[in-house]
Structures are given as structure tokens and as C-alpha cells.
């Protein structure tokens, strides 16, 4: 009995150590990043890596960042919000019903649709860029919001998430009973399935937001005008204006490493806020309201 309890304590300690170790692994570089934004360019190199800088340096970095290309950073953030929000909306509108139908309805072509979706998901993105660009060029839509938002709204990952969620967590009997109660497919979906789907809607919305927010290549290819860049494309431009990565920019380089870090922190803030907000739904008991025995 005693040895059992001792073994249990050791096990508990081991688990705690493991979880903390991984927490450190994930969070330490982020802590470094946050501290780096409060340092001067010289301090970033000379000071101890995990020491804080000063408020003055932080303010200085902020001022420099905001004056980069006459306030381009604010424009880029605005663009990012617009693109990400629009495409999340569209993604949810199309993928939740699709995932639901794939999981719980039988119709011709269901299996085929699942297979085709999977194939497309496995297709290397490098090969898809050119044709998508040509489609938009053909329609004369290059450099428009649509050229970024529409392809980003195609989110097979989200369709699969909803598909798996509905097929594992919502019993078909529940829906059958709703149908028997006299409701049509649309009402069954809207009144029975959708309320159950909150967690997965949050999950899909969240992942599509992150993916759209961080999408670099699509806007980079589609938007030849710098006023339309989202933040990720803007960040690459700032990287190219940092002497560390592009020595040719000279002594009066516009972007110093701490400013680049600050720009990054700015760019990930919305993602973290959305995560905190949706976390409530993400992990809420996924089976709440399911049929009981």
C-alpha cells in the first residue's frame, strides 16, 4: 500500500516535470521574443538573452516601427484583419454544412467528394499557385480583395474537421428523431445539429483564421500593390530592410531587429486574442446534449 502511494507520487512528479518541461520548450522562445522587443539593437546582441530591456527602448522601437514607410504597418494590419475576417465567414458558411452532410446524410458522390477533398489537400501548394493565379488573371481580379479571400475560403481541413466531428460525436439517431418529429433537412441542421456543433464551429473558425492570418504565399502572388499587402507579406519586406538579412541597406537601415520583433508581436496579437476567445468553445464538452443511453 505504502509503496503504491510512493510510486504514485513519483509518477505524479514525473508527469508534472514532463508537462512543465514541454511548457518551457514552447514558451521560452516566446519569452525571448517578448523581451527582445524591449531592447536596443545593440542590447539585443550584448545583453543576457533573457534579460529585459527598457521601456524607453520599447517606445523607441514602437515609434520607428510606426514611421516605417509612413505608417505602412497600420495599413497592413488593417488589410490582414479584413482578409482574415471575410474568409473565416465564408469558410464557416460553406464548410460546416458540407462537413455535416458528408457525415450524416447519404447522397450520391459522398465518398467521391471525400476522396477528392483528400487528394486536393495532399497536393503540394507550390503546384496550385500558378493555376489559381491564372484563373484570377483571366477574370481580371488580380490585386482585388476577392483574389485573396476566395481561395483562402477554400478550407478542406475545416470540412474534414466538421466531418469527423459530426461522424464521431453526433449520433445519427438524434437527427433521425428530429426528422421523425417532422422537420426537414434544413431545420434539422439549423435546430438540432448546429447548436451541437459550437465547438467544431469554433475550431474551424479558429484554424481558418490562423491559416488566413499567416498565409504568405497567396497574397504575395495575388497582390502586386504594396498598399494591399497583409501583415505577413509586409513582415517579409521589413526583413529585407533589416541590415542583418540584407546588408546592402546600409547604416541608416529603416528596420532594426528589435523593431522586426515588435512588428511580429503586433502581428500575432490578434491570433492569440482569437485563441483565448474561442478556447471556451474549443474545449467545451463536445458531447453536451447528446443522446443519453
Amino acid at each position, binding site marked *: 500500500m505504502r509503496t503504491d502511494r510512493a510510486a504514485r507520487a513519483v509518477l505524479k512528479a514525473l508527469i508534472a516535470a514532463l508537462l512543465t518541461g514541454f511548457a518551457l520548450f514552447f514558451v521560452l522562445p516566446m519569452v525571448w521574443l517578448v523581451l527582445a522587443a524591449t531592447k536596443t539593437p545593440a542590447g539585443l*546582441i550584448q545583453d543576457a538573452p533573457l534579460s529585459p530591456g527598457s521601456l524607453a527602448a520599447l517606445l523607441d522601437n514602437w515609434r520607428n516601427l510606426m514611421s516605417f514607410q509612413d505608417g505602412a504597418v497600420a495599413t497592413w494590419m488593417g488589410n490582414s484583419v479584413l482578409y482574415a475576417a471575410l474568409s473565416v465567414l465564408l469558410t464557416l458558411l460553406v464548410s460546416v454544412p458540407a462537413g455535416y452532410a458528408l457525415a450524416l446524410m447519404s447522397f450520391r458522390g459522398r465518398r467521391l467528394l471525400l476522396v477528392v477533398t483528400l487528394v486536393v489537400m495532399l497536393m503540394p501548394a507550390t503546384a496550385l499557385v*500558378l493555376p489559381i493565379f491564372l484563373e484570377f488573371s483571366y477574370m481580371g481580379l488580380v490585386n482585388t480583395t476577392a483574389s485573396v479571400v476566395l481561395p483562402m475560403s477554400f478550407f478542406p481541413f475545416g470540412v474534414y474537421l466538421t466531418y469527423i466531428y459530426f461522424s464521431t460525436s453526433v449520433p445519427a439517431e438524434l437527427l433521425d428523431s428530429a426528422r421523425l418529429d417532422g422537420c426537414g433537412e434544413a431545420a434539422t441542421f439549423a435546430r438540432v445539429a448546429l447548436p451541437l456543433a459550437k465547438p467544431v464551429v469554433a475550431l474551424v473558425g479558429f484554424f481558418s483564421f490562423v491559416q488566413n492570418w499567416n498565409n504568405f504565399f497567396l497574397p504575395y502572388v495575388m497582390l502586386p500593390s504594396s498598399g494591399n499587402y497583409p501583415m505577413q507579406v509586409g513582415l517579409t519586406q521589413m526583413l529585407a530592410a533589416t541590415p542583418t538579412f*540584407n546588408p546592402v541597406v*546600409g547604416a541608416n*537601415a529603416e*528596420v532594426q531587429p528589435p523593431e522586426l520583433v515588435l512588428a511580429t508581436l503586433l502581428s500575432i496579437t490578434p491570433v492569440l486574442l482569437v485563441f483565448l476567445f474561442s478556447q471556451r468553445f474549443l474545449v467545451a464538452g463536445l458531447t453536451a446534449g447528446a443522446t443519453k443511453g
Partner: protein
Amino acid sequence: MRRCSHASRRRAAPAITAAAVLLALTACAPPSPAGTAKTDAGTPAAASPYGFAPAPQKDGKLVVWVDSTRLDAAKAYQAAHPDKQLDIVTYDGNANGSNSLKTKVQLFNRAGEGWPDVVFTTDNNTASWASQGDDAFVAPLNKGLIDQGTLSGFAKGALDVCTVDGAVYCLRNDLAQVVLWYNKKLLDKFGYEVPRTWEEYQALGEKVAAEHPGHIIGTAGDAWAPEIYMWGAQCPANQVTAAKAITVKATDPACVRAAQLIDKLVAGKTMSLLPLFGPDFAKNLGDKVLMLPGPAWYGGAVFQGALKTPKGELAVGDALHWADQNPPVTGNVGGGAWWVSRHSARLDAAKDFVTWVTTSDEYQVEKSPGYPAHSPAAAKWIARQQESGYYAGDIAAPITAAAAQVWPGWGSPEFSQEAVWAKTVIPGQTAGKTVESLLPEWQTAIEQQAQVFGYQVAK
């Protein structure tokens, strides 16, 4: 329940319509890969006054692509010409081998539209890929578009990187000739003479190793090391002999000599293998730099920017050369250029723009961070640098002299020689091998890379 199903159908109706429209569009959409169709409609090349078939000319905004640093040039132009309509786009300047210009131009070629009118790049590989083939993007400038007077104002050899088969495709923004940067205060304190030849330089290295260990007189940890040491040594590893032909002799005695120089200094620890702009270098060697052979932009970017060398210490010596080189030659690291699109519908405006940004005092003398490629501007620019009081002694004479000494035998092929060096030689050096022993590997790597791009390789 009837109402339910009705509602669903109504809601779905727009989606189905949209589906049909998109299907129709995509079904008839396969765009022809021949992107040049639209421009071919213009004047035939033979009858053109420019040496290429220009697109039909129209009014409108001139689309200019610049990097962050050259945004000043476009803004200065706009300020001096308030009546001209500009659409200024910032991009990464094709820096760091990002290939962003190439990527986008290839997409535009496929789409047959969308090219910018004027582009700035920081690399030297654009002429070789953008001027050739059916999908050529850049316009020849010396066939009538730009006045001969303007072209002849550029420093000797400045337009070499723009030239393919006798046609000039760009106006050089700044030069990056290699000179000898040294810390005068430190050199005087140690009581050394400024070396004039690579032989003297090597001897000095051995002396420094013995008398002042820890100090360095050069670096070889960056991708552009071959452009400092191999180019200046007239190493024939990169001779572009025709648009698609290259001669590679990386094990030539001239290369071996330069390799041995690097190896000796590295062994004596007076040449560092740390990347110049990595955090490590500034931290550990920032105040140990006695001298660095390097391009003209080192003064601003390395000493003022990264190393924070105090005012009044930095001086410039004549570019190093090998004793038997006659005339003396030097290397070159980078230097940006301006290009005009041959698809441009606003060629006059484009011509005016590139001429102004490369020659006018308002930009090249007042604001340019690099040594101007246009000689009259360069003379005024260097005088201004001298007046700033940052440098110890005369910097104008050695930098100006080196501008005309860049060896023309080092070509600008379609691929990046820097990338080849960084990938093959630097890891080998880090693993403790000598550059001399790595020369055959370097040779093979250049050959393979050249073949990938369809070059005829001669050895």
C-alpha cells in the same frame, strides 16, 4: 416542415447559381501560356526606334517597384516632378536571393499582363534571365531608349552587369567595388603600414597573428567571400562567355593562390569565419577589426551600422591587388540597378524616371546610401561623405580609383554564385577543410548549377 424545406432551397439557390457561373468561367478559362501575345500586337522590332517591339503607348500612372531603401528615390522623383503620376510599390528588392521579382515576372508572363514599368533590384543576376527568350521582360536601353550621353556618364565597367551580348538592359544605381577598409587608429597604434598588395596583406596577417592575436584583418564567413578574394584574384570560375555559355576553371592557379591566402589567414586566426552580420560577429569581434577588404558599402553598413566604429578611426586604402597584376584589378559585391519593362505602355515616363534617379543630384548625391554609379554624381557624393568628418583621411581617391578597376572577367550568370559558395565551401570550411581542398567541389557545384539553368559549360 414544408416551410423548412422551402427555406433551405431558397437559401441554397444563390450558391447553386454561383456554382454554375464559376463552372462556366473555369471551364472556358484555360489561359494560353503564351504571355507575349498582347505585346506582339505592337510595332515590329525592326521598325522600332528602341530595338524591341514596344506595347501601344497609353497615359496613366507609371508603376515603379522599389525596395524600402530606394523608396526615397521614388519619393524624391515625385517631389521634383509633382505633375508626374506615379504608383510606387515597395517590395523586397529581390534581396537575399528571394527571387521575388523573378517569381512575379514569371506569373505575369504566363498571364500576359501585370508587369511593372520600372523596377529596382539589388542583385546582379537579373539581366541574364530577364533579357532572353520569348518571355524577355527588360527592355534594352542602349538601342535608342536612353541617350548615349547618359549611358557614357556611368563609371567604366558599371554597366557590365546590365549587359548581355552588347545590349545594355539596366542603369546601375550604385557601385560596390572592393577596397581596403582599415582602422587607422589601431593600425597606427600597432605601428603597421597599410598593405598595397595581397602578398603584403598576407605577411601582415602573419605579423598580427604573432604580435596582436585576437585581432582580424578579414572575414570569409559570408556568401560574398568569393567576390572579394576570388574576383579580385582574377579567378576564372565564373566567366560568362555568351548568353548561355559559361567557362568554369575553379582550380586555376589564380584561384588556388587566393584560396591559399584565405587558408593561411584562417589558420592564423586573423581571418574570421563568422558571418559579418550575424549576432556573433558584432558581439565577439566588434572592436577587434584591424582591417577588412570589402565593398564600398562596408563603410556605412558594417562599420557605422553593425560595428559602431567611432568617428575618426575608419580609413580606406587602395584596393589590394596581386603584385603581378597589371593593371591592378579588384572585385565587386552587389550594387543595385534600375530596369525598364519592355511591356511598358509609358516608356517616355519610364525613361525620364530611370535617368533622373540614377543621375540627379537630388537623389544620388543628397540621399543615396551607396556610391553612385554615375560618375559626376559619384564625385559629388564622395565629397559629401568626406565632409561628414566620419572618416580618417582621404577616402575619395582610393574609392574612386577602385570604381574603374573592377575586373570584367567575373560574370553575372542567371544563378547566384554567392549561393553556390555558401552551400558548398562555407560548410566545408566550418568542418575544418581548407578552401584549397574544396576548390574541386566548388568547381563541380558551379558546373551543376550552370547546367540546371541550361548553360553550356566549358572547363
